[in-house]
Structure formats: C-alpha cells, structure tokens
C-alpha cells in the first residue's frame, strides 16, 4: 500500500460577494489523483497559478479540500475531526518556500526546532537539547546556532532550520513547496543535497513542488505536471524529461533556457496565457493554448490515462 493516495481531490475557493451578484469559485485543484510511496520523491511542477501549492496544502489539510480523498496509510485524512487529525499531523510536515517568513522572528532556533517535539511528546526536558543538536548536525549546522535567532542567519541557514523543524517530529510524508526558490543560486545545491540525503536516510515520502523542471529532474523519481488544477502528465523522471507525451509538458520543457550558449532547444510556442481558473471548464484545460487542439479537445475533458508503462497522460491526441 502506498504511503499517500490522493483521489479525485478538489479544492475550490469562493470569491465574490455572498449577498450581491454572482458568487464564483476558483478551481485551484480540480480533480487530482496521485500516489506516493515511502522513500519516494514525487516532483510536482507547474507554472504559477497551476494549483501546485494549493494541492500540497490540501494534502496536509492546511486548506480544506472541497471533495475527494487523501489516504495516508489507508486512513482518510479528510474524514477525520480535529482531535483525531492531530496525531496524524505529526506524520506529515511541510517546508515552505520563504524561510524569511516561515520562522518566528521571536523564537530562538532551539525553541523553533523543539516545539514540534514538545507538542508530540517526542522529547523530554533531559534529552531535548541533545535531540535539537542532533537535528542541527543533520542539516550541517553547529550546535551554537541553538541560541541564535532567525534574523542572525542567512537564507540558506534558515531553510536548513525549516528542514530540521519539519523532521523533528519524524514525519513519513514531507511536502517541500519550492524549498530552494528563495535562495541564492550558489547555496541552492547545498540545501537540496541536505533535503535529499535526509529524505533517503529516513525513508520519507517527499512531495517536491517546484516551477523549475531542471531542479525537479535532479531530485524526483517521478514527476507530475499540473496545469489549471489538473495533472496533465505523470511519469518516471527520465521518461518525462526525455519522452514527454503531453503537448503542454513538451512546451514547458522546450521553454527552459539552456545554460549552454551553443545549444538551442527547438521551442514550441504557446498562444496566450494561463486562462483564469474561475472560468467554468469545458473540454481540455489546455485547449485554448495548445498548438495541436482539435474540436474534441474543446468538447471533452480528457482523463489521465496510462499511455505507456508508468506514463499517464491527459490528452485526446496521444
């Protein structure tokens, strides 16, 4: 049984007035299925507004999904009440994008890392310090950082603290939402390295959310590509990067600038931009920009189906 099984997940946000005019819905996540095993890294890519962050948060119930199910080891996270959800929260943690916003400026690092352990009674007064020290060491920081405050640290160091905090309650599932996007390029590699080493050592299932396909290629075992709240393609990382089937994935790959001045990718040009997720959807969400769209794409919404072993695509033309 997989660690995480998401089925038919929908998260819609209301907007507009409840009393005046029309009330509309932003369909941030609109029917997503995915699975994640222990020790596996699933990369979730998409452009801004594709719903990848909302999906990550819905899985952890940091936002309330509208419909669907999220099974963690066979238990539906969405059906639990507050009290029964709490012990489960220990097993699912998150690292946010911006380490300047995700750490309380008023707490010492020691307290930031120890708080989840206190909450779940994973440490007592005597061994708390030792455990914090151990976590600091595992993210490559010296013990003296315990007495520091976040503002005394660089972005890369803060993000390591955020990782240590997430791991302090020994989670099975970790959602990392653009964990290196806010960091300087030269320190991104360090932080990615630490995150992946710990993920492997501890056999954590990692949902790695990123807009950057080149980063995802380095970290993920499988990749899911999101567009307008839906998964357009999902495949093992090599198959996706070298043999993408969905026209959107192909366009996305072709748009990545290559750091080799002599090499030019053949670029697939897309028309227009991401449509508003509040428009009612008919047909394929990508049809308005797809270079290959046909009549059927405007009429019917394609389902995510396995077209090659391990490679699922939501497209009528593939």
């Amino acid at each position: 049984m997989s660690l995480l099984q998401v089925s038919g997940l929908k998260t819609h946000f209301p907007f507009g007035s409840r009393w005046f005019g029309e009330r509309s819905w932003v369909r941030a996540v609109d029917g997503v299925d995915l699975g994640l095993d222990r020790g596996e890294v699933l990369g979730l890519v998409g452009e801004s507004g594709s719903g990848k962050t909302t999906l990550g948060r819905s899985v952890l119930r940091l936002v309330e999904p509208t419909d669907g199910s999220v099974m963690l080891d066979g238990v539906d996270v969405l059906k639990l009440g507050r009290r029964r959800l709490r012990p489960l929260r220990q097993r699912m943690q998150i690292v946010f994008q911006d380490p300047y916003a995700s750490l309380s400026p008023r707490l010492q690092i020691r307290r930031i890392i120890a708080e989840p352990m206190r909450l779940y009674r994973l440490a007592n007064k005597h061994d708390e310090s030792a455990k914090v020290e151990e976590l600091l060491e595992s993210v490559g920081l010296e013990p003296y950082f315990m007495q520091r405050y976040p503002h005394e640290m660089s972005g890369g160091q803060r993000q390591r603290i955020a990782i240590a905090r997430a791991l302090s309650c020994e989670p099975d599932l970790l959602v990392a939402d653009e964990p290196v996007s806010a960091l300087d390029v030269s320190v991104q590699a360090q932080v990615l390295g630490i995150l992946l080493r710990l993920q492997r050592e501890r056999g954590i299932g990692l949902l790695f959310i990123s807009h950057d396909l080149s980063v995802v290629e380095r970290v993920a075992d499988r990749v899911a590509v999101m567009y307008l709240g839906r998964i357009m393609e999902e495949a093992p990382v090599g198959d996706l990067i070298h043999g993408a089937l969905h026209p959107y994935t192909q366009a996305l790959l072709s748009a990545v600038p290559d750091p080799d001045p002599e090499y030019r990718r053949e670029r697939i040009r897309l028309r227009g931009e991401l449509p508003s997720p509040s428009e009612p959807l008919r047909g394929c969400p990508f049809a308005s920009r797809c270079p290959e769209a046909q009549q059927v794409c405007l009429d019917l919404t394609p389902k995510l189906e396995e077209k090659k072993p391990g490679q699922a695509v939501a497209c009528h033309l593939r």
Partner: protein
Amino acid sequence: MALLRVEELATYFFLDEGELRAVDDVTFEVNEGETVALVGESGCGKTIVAMSILDLVPWPGQIVRGKILFRHEDLRRVTREKLRQSRGGEIGMVFQEPGAALNPVYPIGRQMSEVLQLHRGMSRHEADREAVRVLGGVGIPEPEKRVNAYPFELSGGMRQRAVIAIATCTRPRLLIADEPTTALDVTVQAEILDLMRHLQAQYNMATLLITHDLGVVAEMAQRMLVMYTGKLFELGRTQDLFDDPKHPYTQGLLHSVPRLGAGRDDPLTGIPGAVPDLLQLPGGCTFHPRCKLSDEECVDEFPSMRTLPYGRVCACYKVKDR
C-alpha cells in the same frame, strides 16, 4: 567603439552601520548592438550598476568614483537636462517587476504617449496613434483596445510587454533590462526573450541584461560579466566563460545550476558557505573564505585584473596573465 563605457565605477551606501560598498571598481563596455549580461547573486551589486548608469541610485547611496561614458560623454558631468533626454530617450529601462514599473492609475497607452511626447516631440494626438502601433509591435493583441487598459487588467507577461514597449518606443541605442523575466513563468519568459531579441535586431539596440539566470545569459548575451560582493570577478565572451570559466566563483556558479536533461550524473556541487554581508566583507579577495583554491596570497589584498586573450579579464591570484 563602445556605446557605453563604465570606468572604475564605485557606488557606496553611507549607512549608520558603516560604509556599504555596493559597487566597487567596476569597468566594462557595451558595444553598439551588442548584448552584455551582468550576472551575479542577490546583493552582488548588479542592480546598483544599472542605477548608477542612470543616476537613479537611491539615498543614502552615492557614486563616489568613476566615469560613465555614453557615446563618449560622461553622464556624470552632463547637465540635468541632457541626462533627462538620455534617460528614457537614448537609454531605455526595463525593471523586474512590471507591476511596479507602471503607474496603476493611468491606462498603459497614456503612459506610453507621455514618453513619446517628451522624447520624440510628438503631439498628443500623434503620440496616441503611435502608442497603438508600438503596442501591436510588441505582440499585444487588439492594441487599439488595450491602450485604454489599466495595468491591473493585464497579465504579468502582457504588463512586461507594455513596459518593454514604453522603454523601446523612443528607439533607444541602449536598453538596460534588470531581471526582465524573473517574475514570469518559463513559457512567458521565452516569449519575452524572443521579443527582446526581435526589437534589438529591429533597432540595432544594445542591451545590458542584468540577471541571475545563467540559462537566460547563454541564450541572449554575446559577452558577460560576473559580479560578487560589488566587485567584478570575470568578464569575457559568454561562450568562453561557459566553456572554460577561469575564476573559481564563475566555476562554482556554473556548477550550481542544474541543466535540464543532464540527469543526475552531472553533480550539482554549489559553493560552500554563504554570500557574505556587504558590511562585513572578508579582507583580500572577498571570495576567499568560500574558495577551494585560496591560500595566504588571497587574504590581504583584492587581486588586480588579469588580462587574458579575447578581451577576457579575471580577478584572481590563481589565474595567471597570458
């Protein structure tokens, strides 16, 4: 002959905590029609170089030394009036955040015709008509309608197109673009880069492209300069720097960026440590605490520029002159 020559530029910020050397002794040229990329991580001073060229350095920053020669005239010595004509006229500017660059309370067409009236001496009526033409030229659909749109009515990509249209409607000789695609998605970024290339060819316009994205550099620039802690570390042809980076920082930077399709065989090593605080810079070469080649030689004084073949320069003790 160089269109723009920046000579020994130094821009410092005089803060209560001390003197912050945001740009320190930077020299480079941009030739007619050429794209030069200015590369570095956040805080390396690349944006302050651009602001210094345009005399837009915010208080308490000040240009303390150096020359900014644009068409042989030192922009630091010309009259305010002449500077005003150059800025937005012969030198166009595009900034990172298109939302912040546009005035939210005027339609975009109005913002463009203001520039056209000021720099190309058009009447209001002519300028309004020209604005429609220019907006169409940067790929904004239905330009006759969109001239009346307010910035908030446009998407990020469309806004950046409008900003580029405003910056280039005066047919500048030089475009300074500061992270023009950083706020955009890759598919939109690709379109904006195409547009910039197209306009450059059309107007034979030179570009100083400021970016931290080496992929964008490889795609756009003929030459590049690498900055770190306000200092110029390496300068040369883009191809040469990518093929054979001489400075250990340039090498480290190139090994920090994953290349799509390379798989996991190509290790991402990054650079140990973190970018130092500009108020507490290490002595000697500012990179020495993070550098794998550093020794006693590197700790006392910042290395002078070594000159290498093909107009390449590099500030590192471990790189020998030709």
